[in-house]
């Protein structure tokens, strides 16, 4: 039972981490390698809130806002000139991740620090004792997925976004301001990354390089998901599940490689991954 919960909670965490990367990739066809940096920013946002004595729950909206604002600045200055050069965009955003990491190091130091968890302890769930916070994370990940789905499918901005995803030139020809859609998308993606950073810090700790392993996993998950939030959920369950199983029955180091290796193999033999076409 607790293994099943491990799988579900791992998938939920992966989903929260990868969602922001996915929408940026979907709309802008750009892999945002600063995603790990934004995640780290979120972790340190949570640290700031709890250090100042705020309620740990406050760190979530705070991280979201910090991430969004940072995303806006970055989109204007760095990402916008690189729309036509996707491989260069990977590099520039990676460089940005380095900059964020160094700025954080300069201010906070490079040591590992711990953030207070909003809820502590375990609860009885379906006959097993399980970490309360991890269970709450599942609810939050579902909430993120539902909200993103609603925005994409229920609002005018969502409609325009989907139009840009399908055919940007046509969308522009129809009078959609695709630059604005990109701007909002990137900012939202950065916000989600930062939010995810704040969400995962109570489970581990913060340090200036905490984002890198998450970035790699999220990147692979997005590649096998195509552009769909639904297939991302599926990919998180399958690959996250495999990771949990390999870590339990194999060894943790192999477990850490599960997602990257499986994703690379899946793409080799089925380039569309978990997407339908």
């Amino acid at each position, binding site marked *: 039972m607790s293994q099943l919960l491990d799988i579900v909670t791992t998938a939920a965490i992966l989903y929260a981490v990868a969602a922001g990367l996915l929408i940026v990739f979907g709309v802008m066809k750009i892999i945002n390698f600063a995603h790990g940096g934004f995640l780290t920013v979120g972790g340190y946002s949570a640290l700031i809130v709890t250090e100042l004595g705020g309620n740990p729950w406050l760190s979530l909206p705070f991280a979201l806002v910090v991430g969004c604002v940072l995303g806006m600045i970055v989109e204007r200055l760095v990402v916008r000139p690189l729309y036509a*050069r996707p*491989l260069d965009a990977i590099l520039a955003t990676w460089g940005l991740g*380095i*900059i964020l990491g160094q700025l954080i190091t300069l201010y906070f130091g490079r040591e590992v620090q711990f953030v207070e968890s909003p809820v502590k302890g375990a609860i009885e769930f379906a006959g097993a004792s399980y970490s309360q916070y991890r269970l709450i994370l599942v609810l939050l990940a579902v909430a993120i997925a539902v909200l993103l789905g609603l925005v994409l499918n229920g609002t005018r901005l969502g409609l325009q976004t989907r139009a840009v995803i399908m055919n940007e030139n046509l969308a522009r020809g129809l009078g959609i301001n695709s630059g604005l859609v990109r701007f909002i998308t990137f900012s939202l993606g950065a916000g989600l990354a930062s939010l995810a950073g704040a969400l995962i810090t109570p489970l581990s700790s913060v340090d200036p390089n905490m984002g890198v392993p998450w970035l790699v996993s999220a990147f692979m998950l997005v*590649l096998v998901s195509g552009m769909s939030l639904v297939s991302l959920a599926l990919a998180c369950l399958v690959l996250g599940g495999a990771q949990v199983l390999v870590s339990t029955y194999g060894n943790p180091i192999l477990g850490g490689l599960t997602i990257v290796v499986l994703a690379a193999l899946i793409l080799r033999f089925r380039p569309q991954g978990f997407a339908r076409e």
Partner: protein
Amino acid sequence: MSSVPAAPAAPAPAAAARRRSSVRLVLGFSAAALVLVAIGPAILPDFMVNNLIRAFLYAVVALTVDILWGYTGILTFGQSAFFGIGAYSAGLIFTHMGFTFEHAALAFSAGIVVSAAVAALVGWLAFYQGASPLYASVVTLVLPIIVAQVLYSGGNFTGSSSGLSGFESFDIEMHTWFWIAGTFLVIVTAGAWMFVRSDAGRVLVAIRENEARCEYLGIDVSRVKILLLVVTAVIAAIAGYAFASVQMVVAPEYAGFVFGTELVIWVALGGRGTLIGPVIGTLLIDVSTAYLSGDLPYYWKLIIGVAFVLVIVALPRGIAPLVTRLFRRARKGGEAAQDSPALRKAQEEPFAGLAGGGHHAIALAGVRKHFGSLQVLEGIEFTAQRGELLSLVGPNGAGKTTLMRCLADGAERSAGSVLINDHDIARAPPCQCVAFGVGRKFQNANTFDALTVAESLRIARTRLEAPSLWTRAGSLDLPDAALKVMQATGLDQRLGMQVRHLSHGQKQALELAMVLALEPSVLLLDEPTAGLTKQERTQIGQILTELTAKHGLCVLLVEHDLDFVREISSRVIVLHQGRIVLDGTVTDVVESELVRTIYAGGGAMSARLA
């Protein structure tokens, strides 16, 4: 035969002289660099000498990144893994078996063999037919992550996270190591320099510019990339071996993904695709890091990060081109003109360079193509013989271009069989279909923008004449038909011009000449004369009829201009809504009521059929 001079032979001596001067330039630079390496230890402080040894070896790896990324367009994060493999083969063998000369040789060979094997495996995974560039980058990203994790999990055997240190190694002075590493760097740089400027090196640029066109010119792009990866992996592994031998320490970080990205950063800052830029970039940054990381460790890395982002955004070609531009301006822009070889007529067994002369030139049975539920082609069956000029006509959306695709790439059709010169193409990739005799010209001019006219034609000859790895040939042998197309359109006067500066019509003509240079026996032409003048069009028409009449080619032509079709075709196939509705002579088609209604409008057609 071969004595027929085709075009201005004048550029030849000049080109030869320039080539010689280019060789002299490399030799001169190398000699100067070797002198610096020789006197280095005597004039530099010891700290600097030590750091430069390491930087020399890093620069060698950076060069391999530049070849892969800057020249061939493969963004790789994985060269660190090969460096690590070389380093660990020395570290592991010296630690566990002790240092002897036999063991040193064993470790050296092990590093080479293991890195080559890993590179071949990675290449097979990353560069399959139709792989996207992003996928290849993903695989190169996964590789160092795996290698580093394997090293972490190796326990006492690999030393886990602290790595291996304190093993015995070559009993060589630092000064001598400086000479060894420096000479190694100079040799690799000079070799790479010769290679990228050779005819073979141009193939890499052609792949970067237009991979699909290379495939359709019969170049097995996957194989070229895998070979290139294996060679660069071995070079990186040798650098890693030397690194472990001189530093007597190895750690998983040297095989990891972060080091892989650092290599990319150095190359980008120095200037991708310039060789010398990445070398200088690596030396400067690595040595500065050694000096500055003590005083301002985080600021220095921050500065590198900022510089990297700025360069990627504002100066994608790096710093080196800026410097060379200044240098060029100082010399008053001397070498603007590209060297161009003399055109010569190829020694031709008339178009027998490829498998030819089958029972049927083309034979299709039951060919079908659908995209999801959309039927594009249905039940296509026909045969064509040598010497036929077969035109494929039909309104837009009839499936003409799709049919062309199915003939030139085995992976395209959904069902049915395609035989070219009696070879079943099965699922053969385009480069294999070229070997069966297919030459395909695309609908839109499909060329190499960054290459010159002469270089493009040389690429087209790659399949028939293996290109030199070190030099550029002084002459370019082309079959008669290709030469005639060049002369008819004036391209023979523009051999040294970059393709991007040609007009649309000239690009069309160049692509046709490139396809003819393949010496195909089945020629697929998708609107070959779009964008040409009436006169050029007539000349091309003459060349095509001559090809079929004199050389026995089978030409399959897609054209909208029915007058042109009428003038040159020996047979016409009318395609409508994915089916063959008529297959006959020109007169049959001209007199056909059916064809008139198809072109007049689909509605009338369906009414008639109903």
